[in-house]
């Protein structure tokens, strides 16, 4: 399904919310379970985005439904030996993230040029 999305369809998903962007970004490094995503996003956003389970999991569900991320089995929990679910970025999710990054980069470059500000 990833390969069937055209560039136009990818760009129609933009702009992403900050929370969505950071969730996708946190998965770039590899698969993570829900709590790891929460902590990672908190770190990446320098404490600005603090997820509760009520905000994280609906967001994860939407991204799963859209095919941006995939749900995979992780190693079993130590105490209960229950397999943990982890999430990983799909090819489509990576395309979406890259497109959003390019979009923001263009915005920043344009703004910097107009304002005469350098990074």
């Amino acid at each position, binding site marked *: 399904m990833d390969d069937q999305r055209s560039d136009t369809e990818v760009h129609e998903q933009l702009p992403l919310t900050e929370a969505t962007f950071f969730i996708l970004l946190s998965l770039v490094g590899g698969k993570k*379970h*829900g*709590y790891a995503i929460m902590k990672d996003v908190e770190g990446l956003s320098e404490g600005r985005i603090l997820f*509760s*389970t009520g905000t994280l*999991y*609906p967001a994860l569900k939407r991204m799963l*439904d859209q095919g941006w991320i995939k749900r995979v089995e992780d190693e079993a929990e130590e105490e209960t030996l*229950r397999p943990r679910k982890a999430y990983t970025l799909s090819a489509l999710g990576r395309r979406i993230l890259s497109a959003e990054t390019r979009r923001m980069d263009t915005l920043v470059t344009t703004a910097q040029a107009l304002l005469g500000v350098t990074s």
Partner: protein
Amino acid sequence: MSPGTQMTLRIYTHLLRLYPRQFRETFIDEMQVVFAMALQDATKRGGFHVARILYRELVDLPVAVISQHIYERRKIVMRMVTYGIRQDIRFIRWGTRVFSLMITGFYLSINLINEQIDYEPTIPIIIQVLLSISMLIAWRWERLGGMLTMAGTPILLTSLLVDNFQRGSWIVPTILASSAVALPYLIIGWLFYSLRQHTDIARVRQADDLEKEDTPKRYKLYLMMGAVCLLIIILLILSVTMLVGSEIVVTPNVIQP
């Protein structure tokens, strides 16, 4: 785990029941584990962090529950719409096939009548036979059959015009009659081709793609089918009328004064 933490986890588990069933079945275990981990971490850091976690969960819960119910509801509606579109496509597909048989049968019977009065098969008749075959191909390979039929239509029209003008037919009736013969093939070919495109779109587009509105396309399909049916009926009536016209012997291929 302290009694307070256990009580908090029990309350949290009960609150999770507010979420839609499908969401609960997928995530309830995970959410319980993650909440427990977050609570455990916060407990180690102090009461303020515990209060912060609980506050965040309580504040976000009503909005999360309501928005998730709305989201699941919209998914169901979109699935019904997409299912409805697929039903429409199926209906239009069979309608197109029936029309292709009608066109083929109609012109075939006229050609058989002409055979009975010693009428020799001409190039237009041969092209018509080929177009009928391409329409039958479209039953299985819609895009290919549709394209072949559409591509053959101008050839048929040209051959009809040339054939009739060579026989000295009148210009305007020849053009009208030739168009009346050729146009149904073009329309049927285009329908078959469009059906394949719409089927591919319906297959690729997810039912829960909430950003796309499929309802307008559905009415567009109805409108398209209705207009095409009307046009084909008019063209058939025109052809039949010209065939049984009082002092003119009319065939789909020849109009003789």
